[in-house]
C-alpha cells in the first residue's frame, strides 16, 4: 500500500494538509471559548479573541486635575492623564500608549496624540502618547477639571477574574455541585441492575428471551419526550415531585436499555468454556456472575459508565423537567441555558467561563478514558 509508485508523495501532502485544516476548523470554536474565558471584560468587546495576544485599543474618559496655575493671562493645567483619579487604577502597570484623544463622548479619539484640540468652552488641550497633557484656557476653568476622553493601546491582560466571578457570585458553584450530585448516583445505580439482566439475557436459557432482547433494542430509540409528562405526573402522585430522587430514578430508567444492550453484547462474547466449566464444578449462577462475569466484563462496564456519566452530566432536558427550577437545585446546563444567557447575555467573558466550567470535567474524562468510550461505541453500533 505504502509503495504505490508516483502519485504517492503529493497525495501524502494533500492528505496531511487537509487533515490539518479539518482539525483546525474543529478546534477553532473551542479555542475561542477557552481564550475568551481568560480575557478581560473590556478587551473581549474591543478585539476578537484571535488577536488576544496583541494590545487592544480601548477608550476611556477621565477628568484633568482641578487646580490650574496661572501663566500670564492663561490658565494652565498640566499632568499625566494616566495618573488622573478616574483611570489611575486601570493603568497601574503603566505601559500603555495613547493613540488619540477627544473632548466629547461621541468622538473620544478625535485628535491624534501630540496634536492640539479645542474644547467646547474654547480651551486648548494637548495629550501626548506618553500620557502627559497640557490644557490652556483664557478663562478660569471650573473646579472639576476639564473632561478628557482618550483612546489608549493597552497591553493584553489575561485574568482569572471571570472564574472568580462565576464561582463566587453567580451560584455556579452550587450548580456544579448539583450536577455532580445528579451524575454520580445516576451513573452507578443502573450499572448493577443492567449487569444482572444482561447476564440473564446472555447466558441463561428461558422462554421469551429473544422477545425481551427485541423489546430492549426497541426501547433504545424511544424518544425521551414521551416519558416526560406521564413520569412527572407519576412522581407528583407518589410524592417524589421534582427532586433529586426523581431525577436519579429517571436517569436510571432511561439509561437501562443501552446498559443492558451493551453489556449483553459483551457478555455473549465471553468464552463459553469458562462458564460451563464453572457450572460443572458446581458454581451457582449467582457465583458465576459475581466471580467470573463481572470481573471479565470490566471494559464493557467502564464503557457504559462513561457513556452514562457524559450523558447525565450534559443533559438539559431531564434536568429541566425533573428538577425544580430554583437556584438551590439547578444543574449547570440549566443554569447556563435558563439563567446566565438571560441575565448575563452580553457578558461574553462570564458566558465563556461558565461554559468552560461545565465542559471541563467531561472533556477531562473523555481524554483519559477515550479507549473505553471508543470500545463502547463500537460494541453498541457495529455488530
Amino acid at each position: 500500500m505504502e509503495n504505490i509508485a508516483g502519485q504517492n508523495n503529493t497525495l501524502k501532502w494533500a492528505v496531511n494538509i487537509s487533515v490539518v485544516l479539518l482539525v483546525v476548523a474543529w478546534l477553532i470554536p473551542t479555542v475561542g471559548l477557552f481564550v475568551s474565558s481568560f480575557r478581560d471584560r473590556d478587551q473581549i468587546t474591543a478585539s476578537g479573541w484571535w488577536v488576544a495576544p496583541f494590545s487592544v485599543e480601548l477608550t476611556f474618559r477621565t477628568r484633568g486635575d482641578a487646580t490650574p496655575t496661572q501663566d500670564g493671562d492663561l490658565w494652565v493645567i498640566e499632568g499625566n492623564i494616566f495618573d488622573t483619579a478616574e483611570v489611575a487604577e486601570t493603568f497601574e502597570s503603566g505601559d500603555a500608549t495613547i493613540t488619540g484623544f477627544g473632548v466629547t463622548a461621541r468622538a473620544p479619539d478625535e485628535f491624534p496624540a501630540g496634536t492640539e484640540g479645542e474644547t467646547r468652552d474654547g480651551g486648548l488641550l494637548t495629550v501626548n502618547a506618553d500620557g502627559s497633557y497640557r490644557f490652556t484656557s483664557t478663562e478660569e476653568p471650573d473646579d472639576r477639571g476639564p473632561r478628557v476622553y482618550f483612546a489608549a493601546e493597552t497591553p493584553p491582560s489575561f485574568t482569572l477574574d471571570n472564574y472568580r466571578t462565576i464561582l463566587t457570585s453567580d451560584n455556579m458553584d452550587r450548580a456544579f455541585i448539583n450536577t455532580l450530585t445528579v451524575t454520580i448516583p445516576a451513573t452507578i445505580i443502573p450499572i448493577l441492575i443492567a449487569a444482572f439482566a444482561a447476564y440473564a439475557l446472555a447466558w441463561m436459557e428461558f422462554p421469551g428471551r429473544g422477545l425481551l432482547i427485541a423489546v430492549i433494542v426497541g426501547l433504545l430509540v424511544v424518544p425521551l419526550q414521551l416519558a416526560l409528562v406521564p413520569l412527572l405526573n407519576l412522581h407528583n402522585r407518589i410524592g417524589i415531585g421534582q427532586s433529586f430522587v426523581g431525577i436519579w430514578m429517571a436517569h436510571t430508567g432511561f439509561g437501562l436499555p443501552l446498559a443492558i444492550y451493551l453489556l449483553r453484547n459483551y457478555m455473549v462474547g465471553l468464552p463459553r468454556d469458562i462458564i460451563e466449566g464453572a457450572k460443572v464444578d458446581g458454581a451457582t449462577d449467582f457465583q458465576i456472575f459475581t466471580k467470573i462475569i463481572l470481573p471479565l466484563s470490566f471494559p464493557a462496564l467502564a464503557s457504559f459508565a462513561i457513556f452514562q456519566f457524559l450523558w447525565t452530566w450534559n443533559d438539559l432536558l431531564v434536568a429541566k423537567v425533573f428538577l425544580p427550577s430554583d437556584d438551590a437545585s439547578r444543574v449547570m446546563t440549566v443554569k447556563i441555558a435558563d439563567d446566565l444567557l438571560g441575565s448575563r447575555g452580553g457578558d461574553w467573558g462570564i458566558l465563556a467561563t461558565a461554559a468552560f466550567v461545565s465542559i471541563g470535567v467531561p472533556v477531562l474524562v473523555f481524554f483519559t478514558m477515550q479507549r473505553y468510550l471508543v470500545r463502547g461505541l463500537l460494541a453498541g453500533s457495529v455488530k
Partner: protein
Amino acid sequence: MSPLLQGALTILVGVFGCVGYFYAANLVLDKFIFPAKGPHTGRNINRANAVRPWLFLFPAIFALSLYLVYPVIGSLIRSLHNRAGDEFIGLGNYAFLFSDPTFLTALFNNALWALVVPASATFLGLVVAQLTDRLSWGNIAKSLIFMPMAISFVGASLIWKFVYAGDPDIGIINAIRDNFGWELVDPVQLPFWNNFFLMAILIWIQTGFAMVILSAALRGIPEETVEAAIIDGAGPLQLFFKIKVPQIMGTIVVVWTTITILVLKVFDIVYTMTGGNFGTDILPSYMMSFMFRDDGRATAVAVVIMIVVLPVMIWNIRQARQEMR
C-alpha cells in the same frame, strides 16, 4: 438534608439494595422454595433454574416498564385528553397541531435536520476516517475531532454563539466579513438559513462519532480486496468509492440511523441558540413550549416524534433479530 449527602446515601442504598436483593432472592429460591434436597431434588433444581432468570431480570424489567413502557402508553392516552386532563377530546390536540403554522414549521425543520445532519456528519466522518487512516499522527487528529462528543449541547451552543456573534470583535464569521468589507449578518436570525447554522453545531458534535465507528469499519476491510484493486490499477478515489465504501455500507447505515434518532430528540441546541424564534423551531423544542403549560398538547407532540422514530425502531429490531439467528 444536603443533596450531596442524599446522593451518597442513595448510592449506598442503591448498590447494597441491588446486591442484597440478588443475593437474598437467590438464597430464598435455592434454600426454601425449591431446596436442592429431599425427595424432589431433580425437579426442584429444574424449577429453580426456570425461575432464576426472572429473578435476575426483575429489577430491570420493572424499571424499564415503569420508565419507558408505561410512559409510551401514558403519553398516548394523555394526548387524547384536554389541557386539564379531565376530558376526553379524541384527536383534538392533533387537530390543533396540524392547524398551527408553528408546528408545521417545526415539522418541516425537523425533516431538514433529519436529512442534513446525518448525511453531513456521516460523510464528514467517513472522509476524516479515510484521511487519517494511514497518517502517523492520525490518532491525535481523530481524538481532537472526536472531542466535541464530550461537550454538552448547551456548552456546544455557547461555543458556537461566539462563532456566530454579530459583533465583529467577538464572532469570527462577522470578523471575516468585516475584513472583506461585507455587510455584517446575524447568522441565527437569517430566515431559513439559520436552520443550517444550528445544524452545523450538531454536525460538529456528531462527526467524531461517525468517524470513530467508520474508521474501525475501514480497518476491518480485508486487505486482499484493496490489494487486488490496486494491482488492477484502481486510483485512490476509485479505491475509496468502489472498493471500500460498498464493503462498509452496513456500518454506514447504522451510523446514519443512530444519528437520525439523535437528531429527533435534541432540543438543547435550538433552545439555547434561538429559543425556537426566527423560524428555527423543531419538534422537541416546540414540545417544550407546551411543557408545564398544556400536557395534552405536549404529549401529542411527543407522540408525533414517536411516530417519526417508529420506522427506525422497527428496522433496528429486525436487524437485531437477524444477528441473533
